[in-house]
């Protein structure tokens, strides 16, 4: 059992995570990760076959920064609005260095420039959360995408 306060802090972290992405606050979203973070989006197909190909692979926070700079300045993508619903949060274990293995399910809807929308992505987050000063942050986030044939394109993170 972890302390209720920690549990609330982890819930808040997920809520902030979704809110930042859904409101195009990518730079704030970045700050929810620790400096030594890893972020991956993995098609479930590859996870099941034991193959290493990802849909997005950031091995450190600088690669995440580069992704965001590129999205802001060097990519064109669909005009869209996202909505993340993150549930079934399970704090599974503590890690040797005082972090926590955490899993959660997500669904993400996407609306287009004319207000039509659909379920864009659903799957599981396999995460590691660590204390960082007063806050908790993600040190690892692996997004396993269950509907791995990506509709349209993948621009902003899941």
């Amino acid at each position: 059992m972890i302390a209720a306060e920690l549990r609330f802090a982890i819930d808040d972290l997920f809520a902030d995570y979704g809110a930042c992405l859904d409101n195009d606050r990518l730079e704030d979203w970045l700050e929810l990760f620790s400096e030594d973070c890893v972020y991956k989006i993995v098609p479930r197909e590859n996870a099941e076959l034991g193959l290493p190909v990802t849909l997005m692979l950031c091995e450190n926070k600088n690669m995440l920064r580069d992704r965001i700079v590129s999205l802001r300045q060097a990519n064109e993508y669909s005009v869209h609005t996202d909505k993340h619903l993150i549930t079934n949060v399970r704090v599974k274990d503590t890690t040797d260095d005082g972090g926590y293995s955490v899993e959660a399910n997500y669904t993400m809807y996407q609306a287009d420039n004319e207000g039509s929308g659909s379920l864009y992505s659903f799957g599981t987050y396999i995460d590691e959360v660590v204390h960082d000063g007063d806050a908790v942050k993600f040190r690892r986030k692996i997004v396993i995408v269950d509907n791995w044939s990506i509709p349209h394109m993948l621009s902003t993170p899941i």
Partner: protein
Amino acid sequence: MSLNVEWQRSDYSRVPYWLYHDPDVYAREQELIFRGPTWSYLCLEAEMPEPGDFRTTWVGDTPVLVNRDRDGTIHAMVNRCAHRGAAVCRHAHGNTKVHTCIYHRWSYDLSGELIGIPFQRGIGGQGGMDDDFDKTEHSLRRLRVACYKGIVFGTFSAATEPIEDYLGPMMCGHISRLMCKPLRVLGYQRQSIHGNWKLYLENLRDTYHASLLHEFLVTFGLDRATQKGGVEMDARHRHNLTYAHAGSDSDADAKAAYGDHQLNSDKLTLRDPRLLEFRQEYEDDRNLAISTMFPNASFQQLNNSLATRQVQSKGIDAFDLVWTYFGYADDDADMTDHRLRQLNLFGPGGLVSMEDAEAIEIAHRASRHEGPDAAAVIEVGGKGEISDRAYRVNDVPIRGFWSYYAELMDIEPEGAVR
């Protein structure tokens, strides 16, 4: 059924929009192109190393099952039960001794031969099938298969020329370069794009767009219109190769050509430049070489990211794209990591490829309800002759695509340029 196309020009520099949106055109494409005298990409041999290994895939919108038989031969057959049409194999990948349809348990061996019908003679003399039912007439429909340098191709037509003739020296050369050693498959990416499949085949032949739409390429000097590069085609102009040489232009060249406002290269740098590192692996110093074969696949190298792409048409308005990434069997762990890192450049979320899906979807959407006279303009690199170009600003291979398309569809204009 015949199709009447009023081509405005015999060199395909105008392509009527309705060809992307017409159900009869689509039905004819399936028959005359995907099930016609063409070779389609099916998969890689490295995906099925062991006897019994199988993959399911699609040729156009026909479901196809590919597997390796006990003697090592690769067979491909339509994944549709000879009984009542159910998909026999329901998995994307796997290994089996026999394929059994779940509906009434008819079973097929690895060559597609029907080997088992439950209760064929009924029970206690009652039920079952008549004596004259001949199992040998009800195997799965087979495709002809050809393997070239580890790539598996299939065709429905007895008339299709041998694979090396179909590909021609240009494509064979590029495939041999890419498939120079035993492969290790690293995994898949899949994408569902809401547009007509031909828009993607055109996109792959459009060198003009690459350094305009994909700003990342330009900003970080991976592919700029000012670089040394160009396009090559096979003799029939149905396949194409687009290539560029790393570092063959300077930022100053690019700036002069693009104008300052278009070029971010001074302002933007990557904090982790390993993404852009190019380790030369082949004799030439091309950092980008992407070939596209008619009608359904592309073979790519950008820096050290290697992949095949397969197009699976899903009706007029949609297609799926399957990216199969690989490295070489002798890559060390560092090289594998490097390839996996560079995979950020490609796929549905690739920093230099995400825009393609958006470009195709907006082109598909906005051209949908056009009248017969409305047509796309395809004349960058000039009109008339369809031929190789030693420069990047051109879309000539798109006209090559249409010239072969029109021949197969039997809709060539008078005096058609080939």
